[in-house]
């Protein structure tokens, strides 16, 4: 067991359970492995995602918090910054060194002082306000840019379907 990483993950878990931010829950999937978490994010109010519940999986590297975790939505999420396979593309999840897209400010990227809570809050605000400079899902980005009503309709339909309505 990597004591540095697991201690910190446990600390964060404790913090998130006792004082969770609105619309977010997160915790290790399995007590044996603090390095795989599941998170639930509520769709932000006032967006087409409102009412939806978006489960996601976070995987932490063993040298966390030096390196960021990866995050993947477990269901499909139609969003310009979410790859079709569910992987979230957001600057806070990118290690400080690499900038594959050459548009991110260093200050937005991962640093050990960030935390799961901050990631989830960032993702929540990303859901509300897509960043179409770096579309992970090009189709969704184009639809969002050009045919907003259709985009919103599709998202709402997805949300309803995911809730079993």
């Amino acid at each position, binding site marked *: *067991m*990597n*004591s*540095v990483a*697991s*201690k*910190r993950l*446990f*600390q*964060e*878990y*404790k*913090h998130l*359970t*006792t*004082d969770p931010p609105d619309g977010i*829950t997160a*915790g*290790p*999937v*399995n*007590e*044996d*492995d*603090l*390095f*795989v*978490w*599941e998170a639930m994010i509520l769709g932000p109010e006032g967006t087409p995602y409102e009412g939806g519940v978006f489960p996601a*999986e976070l*995987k*932490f*590297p*063993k*040298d966390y*918090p*030096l*390196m960021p975790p*990866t995050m993947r939505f*477990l269901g499909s999420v139609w969003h310009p910054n979410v790859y079709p396979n569910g992987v979230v593309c957001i600057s806070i999840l990118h*290690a*400080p*060194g*690499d900038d594959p897209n050459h548009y991110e400010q*260093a*200050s937005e990227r991962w*640093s*050990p*002082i960030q*935390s799961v809570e901050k990631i989830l809050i960032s993702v929540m605000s990303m859901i509300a306000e897509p960043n179409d400079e770096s579309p992970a899902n090009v189709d969704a980005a184009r639809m969002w840019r050009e045919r907003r009503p259709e985009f919103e309709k599709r998202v709402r339909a997805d949300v309803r379907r995911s809730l079993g309505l």
Partner: protein
Amino acid sequence: MNSAQDVPDSTDWLHTPLKEFAQLETALHCQICKEFYDTPMITSCSHTFCSRCIRTSLSADGRCPACRTADQASKLRKNSALQEVVATFMSARPAAICVARREVEQATQKARPGKRKRAVLDLDDLEQAQGEGRTTRSKSRRTAASETSTVDAIEVEDSDEGADETYEPEIERVPDDGLLECPLGCGKRMKIEQVEPHLDRCEDEKQSEKREKHPAQVNGYLPKVTSRQNGPPRERLAELNYSLLKELPMRKKLEEIGIPGWGSKQLMIKRHTEWVNLWNADCDSDHPRSKRELLQDLETRLIADARRKKSNPAMVSSSPKDQPIEETAALPPMNSHEDSNHPVDDDTSNPTPQSATDTQPAPYAERPEALPSIREKVEAANAGKQIEPVMNQGFISQQPQPDITITIPAAAASGALNDQEVPVPQGSENPALLSQGHFGHPKQDKVVGNRDEHSPSGGRRGTPCELPAHLHGDSRKMPMFAVPSRPVSDSETGGGGGAVQ
């Protein structure tokens, strides 16, 4: 010890009248490890982190994690004032949280509109809280800061211990004995007529008295004084420019500073970086550990890395770029007396069914009973112990049954062939199993050593004691992981075990 409440966290304060303390406590946490500052160091850009944290971070990134200004470990300076604040807060915390919680309890019990003042606190509260004594970081995890904890010794802590190591209690009040005190301040009292002759000798007497008194006084504070004075102060290690060093000189360098110089260059770089961080952080600390302890710490860390890779292959493949060097060879063979090396070596050859269950999605929130287990692990990790996942019910139920039914006959058959041949060249443990008659667990310890977290010293290794009773009863002839594998003794030569798998 039975709830997450035992791990101190700033959120402990949230539902008490002392809400603001949550922020105070967060401010006293290192932003990297999210725990209380341990030997806080200040960067050139005036941000503060634990010595270990910032050193590790700088060696990985070379930038301040807070503002991303480029910085160097050699420019770090100690933030002693903050360290004192943290230490004081930590020692005051148990008492304070106790009071705060009691407040809440009383408020709820008496259902009085919460207007109780802190002043109502009676002596019992204080004594109980202080009985918990000094709180180190690891201890405070264990100590339940709740009122149920027992009071072993009531020890009233000195508010500024440490500052007054040579402090000698002075008698301020003037005794009414008709004597005069020495005007030179040596503290002696005498009759008026003795004063004048005394004045001539006073200085001398003082000197000789000091000589007599001093040793005794030092002894009284021995534990504290010695911590720094054992040998000359340590020198910090310089970072190396790894890209300029060839493998051979590097090996030498590593051996020079007393850490193992084997393995690939990548491995050595990792080991060296870890060691430099560990060592230098220890130089910063007021309570340095012995080199032996540090070496053990280093070993634990490297083993932990290797172990994580083994136990979680999915993780590694998902993030290929941040997995530097975690071959099993990362284990330095320095404490060969410790068994902990072997289990990990064994890991390489033993495909674990565990990984399948690790990633099995199961909403954690619905399993609050898992919490103590996690906490124990963290504690153990904290204490530097080797730990491995505990088998839980889910694991057991998912254990592939065919494995067992197939392997037992196989083991029996091959064992029958080999019967009296010892040692078996393939490293098979079958004769040993057979000689046990019932494939009983005691002899199988070598085979399944890597699964066992509970007895690093090699005690009862066969059955994980977390198994429910019905699973390690006699009815089950063989522990489920007793798939013959290469024994530990062969692992170093690297031969043998392959055939059995």
